[in-house]
């Protein structure tokens, strides 16, 4: 038997860490970054990755669902339970977006992070208004600035983007389009 001090500093096994991760995500009830979790769980990045994978598997077929967006994790309800949750919660999500919004979302989802100029190059039209509206809805956000003249904003999707599509991570999106002629 190891002493209390020793066991506290010992690396927990994956099952234990996965249970701790579940408890923390449940309590915080918001997207939590891996970096934050390292601090909270006093653990290393590979251990947290393993714990997250194990938690995701353990939740298969359950009412809760582990969502991963880039370096953020969140515990949410399973997409198959959307109807019953909607009945109790009556959330006010936008029911439909415009075709322009879906196009823009698709481009950002597959090519993130990218600038407005690049999005406009693909869509061939001005995207200022649609980007503003998507940002307002919390489906995209500024993820940084491009290191180029004018340091334009870079856009990426958000956890909420996964939530309105019921995806566990961006990897679940349909296969991405092959990059067209590498002219730029």
């Amino acid at each position, binding site marked *: 038997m190891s002493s209390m001090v020793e066991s506290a500093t010992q690396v927990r096994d994956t099952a234990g860490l996965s249970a701790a991760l579940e408890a923390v995500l449940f309590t915080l009830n918001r997207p939590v970054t891996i970096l934050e979790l390292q601090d909270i769980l006093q653990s290393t990045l590979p251990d947290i990755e393993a714990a997250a994978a194990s938690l995701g598997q353990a939740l298969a077929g359950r009412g809760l669902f582990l969502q991963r967006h880039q370096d953020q994790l969140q515990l949410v309800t399973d997409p198959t339970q959307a109807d019953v949750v909607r009945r109790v919660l*009556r959330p006010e999500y936008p029911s439909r977006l415009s*075709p322009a919004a879906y196009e823009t979302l698709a481009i950002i*989802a597959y090519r993130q992070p990218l600038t407005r100029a690049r999005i406009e190059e693909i869509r061939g039209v001005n995207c200022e208004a649609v980007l503003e509206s998507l940002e307002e809805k919390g489906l995209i956000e500024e993820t940084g600035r491009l290191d180029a003249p004018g340091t334009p904003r870079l856009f990426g999707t958000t956890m909420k983007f996964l939530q309105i599509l*019921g995806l566990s991570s961006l990897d679940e999106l349909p296969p991405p389009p092959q990059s*067209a002629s590498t002219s730029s």
Partner: protein
Amino acid sequence: MSREVATEVERDPVYLVRTSAFDGPIELLLTLAQRAEVDLGAIPLASLTDDYLRAIEQERPPLDRLAAFLVIGARLVQLKAAALMPEAQVGEEEDLEAWEDAIKGRLEEYKRFKELAESLMRRHASGRFTFAGLLEPDVIPQARVQVSLDALASAFQQVLDRLPPPGPVTVEMEQVSLADKLEELRQMLVRQPQLNFSAVFRHSRTRLEAVVTFLALLELIRIGEARVAQDGAFGEISVHRQERTKHELDG
């Protein structure tokens, strides 16, 4: 070379350019400009297109001819723009091909994203969302925001103000029962579980009737069969039907 091109297009030019600096088929103008044998700087492209637009108003050419002009015109603008910016050198014919490839590639890329957008839309429309717990502030239904009594009172005042002014005094006993209004309001909410505040008074013909209707609404709120909500400060107040919980029925 330029003579070959000239004979080829001479039979059926897309458009005959008539300017002081260049006089001939527009195809030839493009070829010469690409070889820097003609100075595009001396040719006003804006008035060239104006002339063309005027010409096609007289006689509308087939679509492929219009498209051909568009392609040549765009290329001329690109060449001229490049000439004004010494950094961006535009090459010769291979460049036109590369340019066409780039356009084609971009159209294909856009088409693929359009398909992906449709699959995102279908996925979104299926409604299989995931939800965070209730602590997440933006999933708490907005309708739970309470309306202050003052806002409710002033909304009612507006309803009163909108009623026609009282006519000549007629002393007549008016029968408006609270019970009737209560039932009427209940039926209204059954038919339409969410109403605008002003719609509640749609049928009120007199001040007294409006007052009793308002009392009936307050009563419904008190016993938990209705609640009122407001989108924000000065927003329209809405009235919602609400099921009485067992607890409230007992109490």
